[in-house]
């Protein structure tokens, strides 16, 4: 079995050590039933477990079919509950990602500027992007890669998502202002949580970024850290599990639900449906929080594939096969439309970014949970106007405009 990660040949980091042990044990237990591949949104019929297992342990070189599968896998985890003997195929594919070369250019392009460190040229490029984004970010710009954090009860950790064209970060802060919260904000490329790197197979870089993030969060000594991205939330959960419960990671859904009685909720006329974020609903089984809020807004209709059986937006394929993910997203939106609900609600900013450009064509409105609450309170006199329309440096090259609130 190969023993290096994309951090380069050499000693494994702690994530790699655990992953290697797990993958070795899981491969030995695989009974070849193919259920994982049948549950997979990207695996084709030409893929055989025997070949995949052999390539995972490195006893045969990966074929083109396997290479394509490994890089197209977006680590949604649908394969895990499908396994009759409780194995984690996604971890096996992650192991392959961490050992497979060369990495697709799309991965490098997407991850290039995420995270701190690196040479002078890279830091200069990040600074330039921050500078370019500043006019569009408006009020949020002050929080991008800022050096010092003041102590606060609540830390809004946006990481790279602070640049999201959806405007979710600004809206969350607007809600926090509305409530009069004592909060601090951590955002920008240099405070990336590292989870996208993990999902790409770059385990060493991922761990480095998570360690860095933990140190930064500790500086603010918050009681809770609220995130708008499902992957960021998972990274925070791992941090407190491994390093100690210095703070409590919180999704926006949990944060909103706790404060729901303080928002003037308005019932919406159309029924709603909910798209689960894989990392929250399937991997952490916390999809119920968002549903509880949605039931306050109106009638919630579930899609046939929801909860732990949800379908991924494919964001973390890093656009290796854009046609494939667009096809999957369209299928998901069609599923949402078939419920009869006019609005599909998400709770992760990445899901929103993935679906929003296709929403008009699909005839479904796609909004974040934060949007619903923001809409409910935006006309309230206590609400301050917030800038919510800008362009993300991460997604500059992406086609199709994403209409932002108030654009």
């Amino acid at each position, binding site marked *: 079995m190969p023993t290096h990660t994309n951090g380069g040949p050499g000693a494994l980091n702690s994530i790699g050590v655990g992953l290697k042990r797990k993958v070795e044990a899981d491969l*030995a237990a695989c009974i070849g039933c*193919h259920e994982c591949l049948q549950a997979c949104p990207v695996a084709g019929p030409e893929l*055989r*477990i025997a070949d995949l297992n052999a390539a995972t342990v490195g006893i045969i070189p990966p074929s083109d079919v396997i290479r394509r599968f490994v890089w197209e896998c977006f680590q949604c985890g649908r394969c895990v509950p499908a396994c009759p003997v409780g194995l984690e195929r996604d971890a096996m594919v992650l192991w392959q990602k961490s050992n497979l070369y060369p990495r697709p250019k799309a991965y490098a392009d997407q991850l290039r500027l995420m995270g701190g460190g690196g040479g002078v040229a890279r830091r200069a490029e990040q600074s330039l992007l921050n500078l370019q984004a500043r006019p569009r970010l408006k009020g949020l710009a002050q929080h991008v890669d800022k050096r010092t954090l003041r102590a606060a009860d609540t830390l809004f950790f946006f990481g790279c998502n602070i640049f999201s064209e959806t405007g979710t970060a600004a809206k969350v802060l607007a809600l926090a202002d509305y409530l009069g919260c004592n909060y601090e904000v951590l955002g920008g490329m240099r405070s990336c949580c590292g989870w996208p790197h993990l999902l790409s197979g770059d385990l060493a870089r991922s761990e480095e970024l998570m360690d860095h993030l933990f140190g930064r969060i500790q500086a603010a000594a918050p009681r809770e850290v609220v995130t708008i991205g499902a992957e960021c939330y998972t990274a925070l959960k791992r941090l407190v599990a491994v390093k100690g419960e210095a703070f409590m990671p919180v999704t926006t859904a949990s944060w909103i639900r706790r404060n729901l009685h303080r928002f003037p909720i308005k019932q919406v006329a159309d029924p709603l449906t909910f798209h689960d974020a894989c990392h929250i609903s399937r991997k952490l089984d916390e999809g119920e929080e968002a549903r509880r809020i949605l039931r306050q807004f109106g009638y919630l209709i579930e899609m046939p594939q929801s909860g732990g059986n949800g379908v991924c937006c494919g964001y973390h394929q890093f656009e290796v096969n854009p046609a494939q993910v667009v096809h999957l997203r369209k299928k998901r939106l069609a599923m949402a439309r078939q419920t009869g609900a006019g609005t599909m609600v998400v709770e992760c900013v990445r899901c929103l970014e993935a679906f929003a450009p296709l929403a008009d064509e699909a005839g479904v409105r796609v909004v974040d949970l934060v949007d619903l609450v923001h809409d409910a309170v935006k006309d309230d006199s206590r609400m301050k106007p917030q800038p919510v329309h800008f362009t993300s440096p991460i997604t500059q090259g992406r086609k199709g405009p994403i209409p932002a609130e108030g654009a």
Partner: protein
Amino acid sequence: MRYCVVGLGAAAAQAIPAIRSRDPEGEITVFSEEPWPFYFRASLPQYVMGKLSREQLWGFPDGYLESLNVRRVTGRVVAVDKEARQVVTEDGSTVPYDRVLLGTGTSPIKLACPGADLGGVLALGRMGEADVLKGYCRAGGRAVVVGGGLPGLTLARMARAMGMACTLLVPEDRVGAPWLDARGSQVLYRRVADDGVEIRMGEGVAAIEGGQGKVAAVTTTHGKGIACSWVGVGLGGMPRTALAGVMTDDKPLKVNERMATDVAGVFAAGDVCCVWDGDAGTHRYTPGWQAASLQGRVAGANMAGGRERFRMRHSFLAATLYDLPLTFIGRADSAGDAEVCSPPQADAYRRLVFKDGRLVGAVILGDRRHANVIRRVIELGVNARGHELQLLRTDIDLNHLLRPTGEYHLY
């Protein structure tokens, strides 16, 4: 160096690459009674039900064994001549060895009642048996399955999935024995009954009647006659030990942690053997595909001069029956000094056994959430005192129990 590998199951499949990676030049001969490549035996039910093709069962990439320069002999091995150091096959031919691995697995336990040799009395252990079963599984008929353990329940599920009526005779006092206690058994029982299987507890097969050499009906030990087109025997397996020279009874072969028997040059791995557990001071039988694979890997490495040890202190068995995931970790059957259980529900039940504040066994029915954390808590001997009830819950993150190890499990 000359290596012989008897059997081509999970243990052999791991042993062969392990030998070859350490000894590129040695002669490797593999003996298998079946003409097929190495295949995933545990997925035979899916093959019978038509969910998998035969080719999807192959466990190696095409041409892989050939690429390792392995000589394949199809035929039954009847003896291992430890004096002359040679393997003897059914046709009398011999193949010399320096090291031999016995990975013969188990064979299904047979019925010992009148009519047990009729056509249509079937077990599911090998591809050939699966092919026969495919022919018998036709919608409209009735199957009688005997055995309330996992093999019997699998056969019953298969019959129902193929559109047959099914009667399940359970000679034991509960379904899911010996893995499940009475409460867990209730959960599984309800699932089986809801699937339309007629369950007859405490009854076995007294006789099988037939005509023209084929099964026509079963008489149960309670005297009930049941017309059927086939009888499924799901009573489990026993070590396939009919190998003169090294194995003399039906008990598993004893091996040390290096998977070596006390006969020089003879190794064993998989369901045919039990492994010395130095900590417990006894040999332990750890059946199952995963243990066989890991043992095979260790045996192969040691046959080629390695010094590896098999150290799977805790058994792990997982399956899904009637859409109910079943997970058995460690020694839930053993007498711990404390245990906690969740109330049995239609789709979930958990039972955890503790000894000296440490978790030693777990039975998890339904949601497998945190099963991997629980497994590591058992394997690493984490002190779980004070967390006993927390371990029953699926709605809280248990990773903090593994904090000293730095491990983190998403599921």
